[in-house]
């Protein structure tokens, strides 16, 4: 006879489950409060005067007519900025308001607060600025020659004299993509009456916002509290400060709450974009398809100010070879400074651009060798224990490159016609003209911050009568962090009732940015460890062996009910760090990255070659996800990420001429609609991360990295033409 043992009850809605997202009901009912919806009694509305020139000298500014407008409470220029007046996510190189020189089209020159939005906009237009227009530097190659650069990075690995039996060369370009989150930049700053301000604004990183506000305006840290608020999408566009410092200036100046909402056209100038890229590649291989040397030159246009160009360039270069073994590498990376709109973070962060380069090259090499493109990739697939060929870092995390390729290949191809024709409702295509193509791409990206940055997140877990309350400043931008952090707390504590509460910068330490696919791993790591420690402390205190919804148990008997634990006021705060990374040495080598993730994509397209129209029928994927913590969220990240990759492949591009954005609106900047959406079949490869909580890897960026190149490859396959630029435009196909 065996002694019955008490098995730990499984918590409901823990990891591996897909609990309904807690903000789902208010979002569906139109009751969720976004930054655009904030309201405060007696608030004023802000507006911004922006430069109509990409480069100019400011001769004079006359705020008189603007100030004279009825209902205007303040018109501020660079002269009114207290403190150093500079900001920037990595380097404070950007003026809060331009004082003497203009470096990009749309650069802020003055800010206004008025009693209603229309008056504010009219007053902003009434600020008289006399400019001396100067010729802008907009050609990135000219900027390189003129040494106008944010960063140069050279990576040299192995014998530099090696050449291959087969050599293929190519030149590739990636256009400027915009994150185009549906919610534009918005915020509300509320003075506290004693010299401080509470700031509620669209963000991915409230602690960085807060420190940039404080440093730019010369304030004391305790004067500014930055509060997480409802964000209508981000994708990188919310990582940098834009209206935040302006709002605080206007609120401090007027002593009244000030709200500001960018209209769509202003949003296109008010946030950074994905870097456009020019890339030169040379791949060397043996006749049987083994890579022996890869040479790449990668030129990214950072635009007028630094933002994160340095880190984006680093990513493009460190992943310039892709997830492949090769001993000899030479990568030259240049992030140039021009008078184009500033570029910075967007989903994929540099890895997108070089993926289009190296995967186009892999296809070119496969064609030259007469080899199946997937077979070429499989033969060179990187694996755990290998060195990343660029950084020479030994890869410790599971890296299922070959598994992703094999899984992808096993997904059946669609047969039969797609019900939607290329060109959609225009119906200009005849089905008899359509040719189908299939293309592949495999991508790799780092997870979390790299190059020796101290990447951490703080989280607090408290037991209250609401259950376990997770307190964090990590921003929910739509991805579902608010769901998965509660799932982790439930599983780690053993308690089914858990909620996530966002708190401001004065009440908790930084969670870092909601970027780099990092929050599930890093803030998740903090929540898991805080919960685990809290559970251990509670059990030790009461001498129990089990904690669940009822309380603490010993040998199956309830010895401390939950109500008692709540009265005792238990809480635990933990700061999680991923394994340390190092800056690169002179050859670009080092333990640069904390973790990696892989995705492979196969695109199926229908093309009308005469009209240049493309319909992306299917994008299938196999993705390395570590462990699936929330199946519905993972599926949503993958489908949404693929859609943005498809957008870059066939339609999304900011058209910039002489530094001016020519299509800053949704009529001319094309976004994929539901009729453009491909069907997606996915296989998830679960090999737990070497340090991620519960084995999780970040899943948000890999879907966007290689889907673009797969679609471009499929179009090439359909029409038999060499396409070296994304987005692929109708004229690239038909002319």
């Amino acid at each position: 006879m065996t002694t019955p043992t008490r098995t730990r009850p499984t918590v409901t809605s823990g990891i591996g489950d897909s609990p309904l997202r807690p903000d789902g009901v208010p979002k569906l009912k139109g009751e969720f409060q976004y930054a655009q919806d904030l309201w405060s009694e007696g608030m004023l509305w802000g507006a911004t005067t922006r430069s109509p020139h990409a480069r100019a000298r400011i001769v004079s500014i006359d705020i008189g007519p603007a100030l004279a407008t009825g209902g205007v409470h303040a018109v501020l220029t660079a002269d009114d900025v207290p403190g150093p007046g500079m900001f920037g996510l990595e380097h404070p190189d950007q003026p809060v308001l331009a004082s003497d020189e203009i470096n990009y089209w749309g650069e802020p020159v003055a800010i206004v607060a008025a009693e209603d939005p229309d008056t504010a906009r009219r007053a902003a237009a009434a600020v008289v600025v006399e400019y001396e227009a100067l010729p802008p530097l907009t050609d990135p190659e000219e900027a390189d020659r003129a040494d106008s650069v944010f960063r140069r990075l050279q990576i040299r690995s192995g014998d530099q004299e090696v050449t291959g039996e087969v050599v293929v060369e190519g030149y590739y370009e990636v256009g400027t993509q915009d994150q185009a989150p549906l919610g534009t930049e918005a915020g509300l700053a509320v003075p506290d009456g004693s010299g401080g301000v509470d700031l509620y604004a669209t963000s991915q990183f409230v602690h960085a916002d807060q420190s940039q506000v404080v440093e730019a305006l010369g304030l004391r840290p305790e004067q500014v509290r930055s509060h997480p608020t409802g964000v209508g999408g981000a994708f990188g566009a919310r990582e940098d400060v834009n209206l935040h410092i302006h709002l605080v200036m206007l609120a401090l100046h007027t002593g009244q709450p000030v709200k500001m909402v960018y209209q769509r056209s202003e949003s296109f100038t008010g946030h950074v974009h994905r870097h456009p890229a020019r890339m030169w590649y040379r791949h060397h291989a043996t006749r049987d398809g083994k890579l022996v040397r890869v040479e790449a030159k990668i030129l990214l246009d950072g635009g007028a100010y630094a933002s994160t160009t340095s880190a984006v360039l680093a990513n493009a270069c460190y992943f310039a070879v892709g997830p492949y073994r090769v001993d000899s590498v030479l990568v030259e990376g240049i992030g140039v400074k021009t008078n184009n709109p500033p570029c910075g973070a967007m989903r994929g962060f540099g890895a997108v651009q070089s993926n289009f380069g190296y995967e186009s090259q892999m296809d070119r090499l496969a064609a030259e060798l007469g080899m199946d493109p997937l077979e070429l990739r499989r033969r060179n697939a990187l694996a755990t224990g290998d060195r990343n060929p660029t950084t020479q870092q030994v890869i410790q995390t599971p890296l299922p490159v070959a598994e992703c390729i094999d899984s992808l290949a096993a997904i059946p191809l669609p047969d039969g016609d797609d019900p939607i024709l290329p060109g959609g409702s225009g119906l200009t295509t005849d089905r008899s003209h359509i040719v189908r193509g299939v293309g592949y791409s495999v991508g790799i990206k780092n997870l979390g911050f790299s190059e020796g940055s101290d990447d951490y997140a703080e989280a607090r877990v408290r037991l209250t009568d609401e259950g376990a309350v997770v307190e964090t400043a990590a921003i929910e931008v739509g991805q579902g962090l608010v769901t998965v952090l509660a799932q982790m707390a439930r599983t780690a504590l053993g308690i089914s009732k858990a909620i996530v509460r966002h708190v401001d910068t004065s009440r908790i330490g930084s969670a870092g940015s909601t970027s780099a696919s990092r929050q599930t791993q890093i803030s998740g790591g903090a929540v898991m460890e805080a919960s685990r420690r809290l559970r251990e402390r509670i059990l030790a205190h009461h001498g129990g062996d089990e904690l669940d919804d009822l309380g603490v148990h010993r040998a199956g008997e309830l010895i401390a009910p939950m109500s008692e634990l709540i009265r005792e006021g238990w809480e635990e705060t933990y700061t999680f760090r991923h394994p340390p990374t190092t800056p690169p040495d002179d050859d670009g080598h080092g333990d640069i990255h904390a973790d990696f993730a892989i995705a492979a994509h196969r695109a199926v397209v229908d093309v009308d070659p005469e009209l240049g129209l493309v319909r992306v029928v299917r994008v299938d994927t196999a993705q390395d996800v570590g462990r699936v913590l929330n199946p519905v969220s993972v599926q949503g990240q993958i489908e949404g990420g693929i859609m943005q990759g498809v957008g870059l492949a066939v339609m999304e591009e900011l058209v910039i001429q002489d530094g001016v954005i020519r299509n800053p609106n949704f009529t001319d900047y094309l976004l994929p609609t539901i009729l453009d959406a491909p069907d997606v079949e996915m296989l998830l490869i679960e090999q737990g991360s070497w340090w991620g909580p519960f084995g999780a890897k970040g899943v948000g960026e890999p879907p966007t990295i290689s889907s673009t190149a797969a679609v471009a490859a499929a179009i090439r396959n359909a029409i038999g033409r060499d396409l070296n630029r994304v987005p692929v435009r109708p004229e690239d196909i038909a002319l």
Partner: protein
Amino acid sequence: MIVEFRLNGEDVNARVVGPTSLLDVLRDELGLFGSKSACAQGECGSCSVVLDGEVVCSCLVMAADAEGSEVTTVEGLSTDGLNPIQEAMLRSGAVQCGFCTPGIVVAATELFRVNPSPTRIEIKEALAGNICRCTGYGAIIRALESLSGGEQ
């Protein structure tokens, strides 16, 4: 001027100054923040409302033209709980950032009112004016298809 219309089943009147859109009046004058302003050009559908039985972008409708009309916003589509469209979207993961969600709820609820068993392509055509930047649309399609094949 004062514009009078029926909003979510109740008579309302609103002060309208100049060429103000119905969207601005809903949000700024009447305090209904469910309809979202995202493009102000009728491209994205975030501001979708039903105006006299037709889904329209309220950013493109002059508020003055709503005089005497029947307007339904997302706030008028469910009372205490969720309507079946909302419930299906919640369960399918069709909500991420949620900024497009009210407009999609409006368009989809109107689709199912007119056509209780839409095909996949009819669902796509009905939502072709609603841009979602987060989901890639897969979960939205799954949510609505689950209703189309179900109780009807």
